[in-house]
């Protein structure tokens, strides 16, 4: 049942400094409100714990896509629509564009942000697998200063993350090292739009002399967090993609992930589909079809 609206407070800070002050002055009391597409669902369900919010929507520092020779940095407020339309992302980080295209529907894509997707910390979120496979780095800011953290170290457990009470996520940095990679992204949900994933797979690989020179794999909806599957990667690195490697990789993946039964699917289905997608990924990159 919907929560009672007058119980909630939503403030609009005039600048970044004031926004950070909300966080610093009453630690743990205030939460940022970006597109609100996760927060409003909780509100409607009467499950929104915090009652004090400040909107970050107007903070210019958190917007925009910045490109340098080494990296592309997305402001935390970058929307899915912006991701879909960005030509550098389309060219060098295509999995992120596919993830954006398959997230929610048009309205959600106009309003939902990559930053919100990360901090909401759903294990079923669709951009994090792509971000993990692209070795993203997060930029965090508090009134005490800025810091960076590799995205793969950010989520520590179900809805747990290395974000201090006084910190905002400001940007997501993607190193431009993807040119020689093959990309494979597949979201499996109940329908083609407006569906939260049952399994989401993102993988990149570099094949040299018919063997795996580099590989990065991440999956959503198969563990308490979106998982970078480093053990499976280790099984693959340096190997040629043959039936033996594929079945060893399948076995490694099944050990590495820990899906559960929930309202959307079953643990068994997720295990099976995750392994099938891994196999399809390996065959696809081996046979040279690019995503």
């Amino acid at each position, binding site marked *: *049942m919907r929560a009672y609206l*007058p119980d909630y407070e939503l403030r609009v800070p005039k600048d970044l400094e004031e926004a950070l002050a909300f966080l610093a002055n009453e630690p743990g009391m205030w939460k940022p409100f970006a597109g609100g597409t996760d927060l409003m669902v909780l509100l*409607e369900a009467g499950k929104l714990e915090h009652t004090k919010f400040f909107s970050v929507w107007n903070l210019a520092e958190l917007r925009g896509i910045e490109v340098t020779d080494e990296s592309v940095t997305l402001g935390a407020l970058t929307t899915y629509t912006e991701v879909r339309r960005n030509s550098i992302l389309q060219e060098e980080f295509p999995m992120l564009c596919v993830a954006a295209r398959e997230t929610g529907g048009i309205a959600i894509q106009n309003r939902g942000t990559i930053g919100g997707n990360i901090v909401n910390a759903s294990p079923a979120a669709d951009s994090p697998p792509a971000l993990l496979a692209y070795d993203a780095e997060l930029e965090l800011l508090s009134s005490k200063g800025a810091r960076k953290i590799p995205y793969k170290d950010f989520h520590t457990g179900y809805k747990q993350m290395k974000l201090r009470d006084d910190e905002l996520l400001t940007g997501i940095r993607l190193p431009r090292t993807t040119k020689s990679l093959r990309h494979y992204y597949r979201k499996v949900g109940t329908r083609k739009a*407006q569906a939260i994933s*049952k399994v989401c797979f993102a993988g990149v690989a570099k094949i040299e002399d018919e063997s795996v020179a580099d590989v990065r794999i991440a999956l959503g909806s198969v563990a308490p967090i979106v998982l970078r599957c480093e053990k499976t990667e280790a099984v693959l690195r340096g190997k040629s993609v043959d039936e033996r490697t594929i079945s060893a990789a399948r076995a490694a993946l099944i050990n590495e992930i820990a899906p559960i039964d929930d309202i959307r699917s079953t643990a068994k*289905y997720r295990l099976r*589909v995750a392994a099938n997608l891994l196999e399809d990924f390996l065959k696809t990159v081996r046979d040279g079809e690019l995503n």
Partner: protein
Amino acid sequence: MSKNEKDKNEQPLKVVGKPFRKVDARAKCTGQTKFADDIALPRMLYCKILRSPEPHALIKTIDVSRALKLPGVHAIITGRDLPIPYGILPVSQDEHAICIDKVRFIGDPVAAVAAVDEDTAFDAMNLIEVEYEKLQTVTSIEEGLMVDEPRIHDYGERGNIHKLVSLEFGDMDEGFAEADLIREDILFYEGNTHLPMEQHAALAYFDTDNKLTLWSSTQTPHYVHRALTKTLEIPAAHIRVIATPNGGGFGGKSDPFNHEIIVSKLSMITGRPVKATLTREEVFYCHRGRHPVLMKVRTGVKRDGAITAMDFQSFLDGGAYGSYGVASTFYTGALQTVTYEVPRYKFRGARVFTNKPPCGPKRGHGTPQPRYALEVHLDKIAEELKLDPAEIRLNHLVKPFSVTANYLRIGSMGLGRCIEKVVEGSDWKDKFSGWDKENRKLPFGKGVGLACSSYICGAGLPIYWNNMPHSGVQLRLDRQGGVCVQCGSIDIGQGSDSVLAYIVAEVLGIDPFDIRVLTADTDLTPVDLGSYSSRVTLMTGNAALQAAERARELLTIAVAEKLSVPAENLSFAERRVFDVENPEVGLSFAEAVVLAESKFGTIGTVGSYTPPRSPGHFKGAGVGPSPAYSYSAAVAEVDVDPMTGIVTVERVWIAHDIGRSINPMLVMGQVEGSVYMGLGEALMEEMAYRANRNVVHKFPSLLEYKSPTTLEMCDVKTYLIEDADPNGPFGAKEVGQGPLLPVPPTVANAVYDAVGVRIDEVPITPEKVLYALREKSKGREGRFGPKSIPEVDWPQPLKVLTPEEGGDGREMPHVAVHS
């Protein structure tokens, strides 16, 4: 009807059969239509209903004192304020607008507030304190049959069994003895809900003259009128129910609902208008949707596929209340006989109460489940006999104008032409791989399936026993040439208002857009029973036809006299009345009305329609008879991804025997909408429950209750078969529900053709497909579905000799029955 046949011969139809726009199309498309929630009255209060968080519990105490003190709260009522029970069927008067001492599912109302605005009402609702004493829950068909205590209701067959039905037509032993093959299958069809875009809303105003008006998004204003009279204890003559245009109904707005009674009562108490608009979550709790049904079907066939006997059992999870459930139970066994000849037929059905939102009628009411079972079963029989699925059906069709073993009188029957159309249109012969899956025609993963169905065109009997017409139409002719059609029927988006206008326009030779259509207002319109059971086009159509013909008669007499032209020479067309032999000799329609009014006084006519009597006279013969039956056949082409189990329906070819299209565009719209809804049921929709022993709705929201989007919707090729039925107005039959029925089995059969696994449970989810594929790869049966049915102590069957055996439609006297 003979009169119209004559017209048809005389001159081409001008309106009927033409793709006119709907009479309300512009208002709908531009957002001008006023739905129930759009109506606001001065000094209106808002109502919120407190609903039980417990699935099964006694109400120990309710304390509203804190809530009453909240500024802005005008009234709070509890069950004691509305002590009289009601229910749509006379045999199931088991609901209270607000629970009195016991709640039966999560969502059952326990109190209601009227306050100055929605937020205040909401806040007050949260201040009401209720103490519950939890009772053990009953959560499944199996538990409903086995757990006698605690009882959810203190009526029914016994324990938590609401209804048991056992009927036997003809000598079953003989039937099975004649068979070359006897096959048994067990299948399950999960429950799902209507998902109308408009959430239910109702506004009541009890005015200073002590008259109550209720505006409500209901499909059955007449039954709501009756329920209000009963529960509020005020004379029917003081109550006016206005059904507002429904933003979709699909059967979900066919019961009288607690919120309708509650706002009425609150208005009586406060003297102010009171409105309630349900949230989407509450709509999931109102439900009355598709019953989950477990089925076992056993059929004997000859080598050529001719059925010798069929024994069908169904088990329905009814949820917490009766609703239409007794009728639903009969419907799961009624229409198996109207497509292919079933010379001997036995049906047993059981409906149980469980602590879940009540089930009721959803598009196809009780028949999509058995139709799915039957058509998949027939596909398996065809495989065993190595017969083509189209051939086995085509070769054993029920004959037109015949009576079935269970005494349903068939009229026109265009199923054969439907099958031929979809077989041809889909290139069935080039796509269906046959039963030897080694020599595939389509690659592995692609397949086609075929299924057929039939549906009633209106129930033969009303919901409460009476001898009055099922539909009435009143026509007023204005001396300026205006025509107003008044009828109790309610347009739920299907176009019933338009059908009234088209038919009257055809008969009177005027433009349908000249006609004022005034419907669904119990003060102003004659009774029509409501928009359910696909009855409206046939029944109100016939009533409108009669009223219009009577009006034309009056005009004809007056004009014939004036022009000195023989009456039979007069024709009505292009807003004129003229001599067919001498078309310049004539008058405008308006002039004709002036002549008639001068001669006869104010011109108004009425028409009514009562369905023909059914040949069945046994107990239970009331469900199934209809003035006519529509038929559909469909082929689906699917793609099944063995990696994920995802089934994509790529194309559907569907042919529908409509009798005659009053408006082919509206007919196509209903066909495509039915395919869409059928695909949702086939592939993903389910009322699923979890936790608390499976009584908490898994996802009462549009976000997680998955129904297809436009991206899932496939191309549909629709063929209309026009085989006019003598009982339909201009030969028309139904289309609102029937075309949904073949869709789920068509998809299931196509999945089998594509990847060789049988999914004997709807919805056909990727989880089930992948499970069956894995079973198959391990050398086990490639199937997902139920394996057994519960034991039931069935009552002695009521036995009826079939017409073939010389039966007269009455049950045989009870003699000692051999075991």
